[in-house]
Structures are given as structure tokens and as C-alpha cells.
């Protein structure tokens, strides 16, 4: 009876684990009668709890679904659902001093641990790690290729891991070729790396060609290259007036040299059937200013 009355007057909540650690001296026995009773009660409650069927989900507290981002969806909140709050159930057990009151401390210790499913979530949803919030225009194909290439690289310590096997002298040449081929097939199947490299090579070639043609154009310009020499009409500086302000006045005189007329020709010939002019390009027109235009032109008459 004494032990029974002692158990009734015993308040287990004044002997929480933290208070015991602080108040118990180091030179006393580790196990006291009160502690053994409490351990026995915990064991009994655990056995009772595990052997009993699951509780019915009624008269429990309810979690506000808006607290959870997962349930912030309008479609989800419009539906009638109910999330049982298991911590509220254990709180009720503790407050009512029920048969599981001792076990509630153990449950509280367990549920105070934050679930940390980082490894699981990172394995099944790596998209956010690859594509940040600012990458709003990245397509699904690009994301897929990025994820595949990254996981392949992580699994093989680098994409071109086959290069390391070449230095291994124990491998035969055939094995290394087989490995390289397998590596090549993996790369072709898993990502379009080669397409990217080919595109990059083509762009490099195009850039080199443009550079080369630009250099050639610069050289052509330096020697004053003109495609058709027969269309050139040489204009001498003597055809222009050097009269200061008179040079800016409108004049009807053409800068072209005067056409040859019949009276200018020697021999009294009056009819010109055709005239073919072959002129040479004069690269130094300043030096030839003193020469007159008719003299600088070699005419051929047919």
C-alpha cells in the first residue's frame, strides 16, 4: 500500500530529464526507487501503446492548412480535408494524466526533431538546384540536359573520365578503345554535348573566315583596287578652276574631258565609227596634274 500511495503522490513531471541532471549529485546512486518506478511506467505505457490499435481520429486538434505552403494552393484549400495534429493528441494525454502520460515526454522528444529530408528531396527534385528563380525562360529540354550532364559528371568524377584510363598501363589498348566507345555512346545518348561542340566549332570557323576576308578587304582598299578599269574616266586637276570663291559657283562645265570632235582630228576625217578608250589607272593623280587630259589618253580609232 505504501508503494501504491507513493506512486499516486508521485508527480512524474517534476522529474523531467533536465531537472534530474541538474539536481542529482554525482556521488549518489544513479538509480533511485522513483526513477525505477518511472522507467517501469514508461515500459508499461510503451507496451500498452504498441499493443493497442490505432486511435480514432476524432476530438483532435486541427492544423490550419494555410500554415503550410504545400496546402496554400487554392484548389487544395477549397477541398474539405482535415489534418490531425498529433502533437495536440499527445498534449491532451499529458494534461489529462492518462495511461500514456509518461510516454508523452518520449513522444515530445521525438517530434521536436525536424524532419530533414534534404537528401531525398534533392534526389527527386534537383531542378531548383540547376535552374534558379531568375532562369524563367529556360526550356524543359535544356533543364533535362543540364540535369543529366551534371548527374553523369557527378557519378563519374568528370565527363571525360575515360582519359584517366589511358594512362593506366595495365589496360590493353582494346579495353581502352572499348571504354572510350562506351563513353562516347553515353555522351551521345545522354546529352547533346557534341552538337554543342560542333556548333561552337562552326561558329569559330565562321569567325576565322570573316577575319580573313576582312584582312583581304583591307589590303584591297590599300592598293586602290578597282574592278573594271575600262569604266574609269580620268579627271585631271586642270579641269577644275582654282579661283577661290568662283570654284563654289554653279558651272555648266562638265568635269569630264571634252569629247573628241571631227575638227580636232588630223587628216580631215569627219566620221568616227567607234572609239575604244583604254586608259591606265593613275595611282598618283597629283603628279600628273601638269599633263593635259587629251595627252594622257591613248585613243584607238577603228
Amino acid at each position, binding site marked *: 500500500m505504501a508503494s501504491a500511495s507513493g506512486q499516486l503522490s508521485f508527480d512524474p513531471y517534476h522529474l523531467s530529464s533536465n531537472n*534530474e541532471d541538474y539536481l542529482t549529485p554525482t556521488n549518489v546512486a544513479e538509480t533511485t526507487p522513483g526513477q525505477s518506478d*518511472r522507467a517501469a511506467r514508461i*515500459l508499461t505505457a510503451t507496451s500498452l501503446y504498441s499493443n493497442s490499435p*490505432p486511435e480514432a481520429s476524432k476530438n483532435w486538434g486541427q492544423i490550419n492548412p494555410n500554415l503550410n505552403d*504545400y496546402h496554400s494552393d487554392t484548389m487544395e484549400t477549397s477541398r474539405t480535408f482535415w489534418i490531425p*495534429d*498529433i502533437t495536440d493528441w499527445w498534449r491532451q494525454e499529458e494534461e489529462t494524466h492518462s495511461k500514456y502520460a509518461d510516454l508523452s515526454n518520449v513522444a515530445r522528444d*521525438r*517530434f521536436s526533431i525536424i524532419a530533414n529530408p534534404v537528401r531525398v528531396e534533392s534526389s527527386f527534385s534537383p531542378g531548383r538546384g540547376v535552374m534558379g528563380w531568375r532562369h524563367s525562360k529556360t526550356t524543359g529540354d535544356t533543364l533535362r540536359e543540364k540535369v543529366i550532364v551534371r548527374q553523369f559528371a557527378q557519378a563519374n568524377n568528370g565527363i571525360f573520365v575515360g582519359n584517366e584510363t589511358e594512362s593506366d598501363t595495365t589496360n590493353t589498348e582494346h579495353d581502352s578503345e572499348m571504354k572510350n566507345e562506351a563513353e562516347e555512346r553515353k555522351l551521345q545518348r545522354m546529352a547533346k554535348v557534341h552538337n554543342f561542340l560542333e556548333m561552337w566549332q562552326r561558329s569559330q570557323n565562321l569567325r576565322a573566315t570573316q577575319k580573313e576576308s576582312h584582312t583581304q578587304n583591307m589590303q584591297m582598299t590599300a592598293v586602290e583596287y578597282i574592278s573594271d578599269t575600262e569604266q574609269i574616266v580620268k579627271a585631271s586637276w586642270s579641269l577644275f578652276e582654282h579661283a577661290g570663291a568662283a570654284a563654289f559657283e554653279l558651272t555648266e562645265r562638265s568635269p569630264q574631258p571634252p569629247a573628241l570632235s571631227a575638227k580636232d582630228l588630223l587628216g580631215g576625217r569627219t566620221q568616227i565609227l567607234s572609239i575604244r578608250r583604254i586608259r591606265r589607272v593613275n595611282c598618283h593623280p597629283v603628279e600628273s596634274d601638269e599633263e593635259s587630259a587629251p595627252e594622257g589618253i591613248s585613243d584607238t580609232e577603228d
Partner: protein
Amino acid sequence: MSKWHTVTLHHVITVYNDMSDHMDRVMQALAKKKTQWKEDLFFAVKLAEQNLSKYYTEVSPMTGMLRISAHVFDPLCKLRSCRKCDKGMDINPEDETSYTTQYKEAFLKYVENEYCAKH
């Protein structure tokens, strides 16, 4: 689950079971399909199941008692998942080799070692 503001540790085993069941159903539905995208999906689900099994094997009485105890402390479930597994494998839950008996003994031993021995 990481975005929840409440206790979620007891949901881990439930989520694992649901994901495993869902993947099994998808693989059964896509097993004989010949369309390219369905074959790709089948291959992806197969890899995902292998990845999940890697984590699921860590939930054992030897290594994952933290998650098992949290799952058992859920008064709505307790050992219902173990009984469901036993029922699926045609094992009597009262047998010593059943999941229910093994997990119950492991749970009792865990509480005894972690709390009763110290208090």
C-alpha cells in the same frame, strides 16, 4: 514536406510507402508499352525506384530507429504499416518473423535503452 510548419517526421515512412506503391503501379502500367516516351518514362521510374530503395533500406531497426519510433508514435498509424506489409506478404502479424513483431520489439527495446535505462 520540408515546407510544412508542423511535425512531419512521422510521415517519412508513409511517404516512402506511398511513393513505392505509386512507382510499382506506374511500372506495371508501362511495362509493355512501346511508345518512345513511355519507354523513357518507364526507365526513369525504374531508376527512381532504385534511388528510393537506397533510402528505404536505411529505415531498418538497426539504422533507422529514429524514423521508426516517430512513425510508431503517430497514434493514427502506430504499427499499421507493418501489418499492411505482413498482409501483403501473407504473413501472420503475430509470428516472430513478421514485420509487426520485429518492429514492435525494436521499438520497445529502443525506448527501454534510450529512456528507461537513463531515468
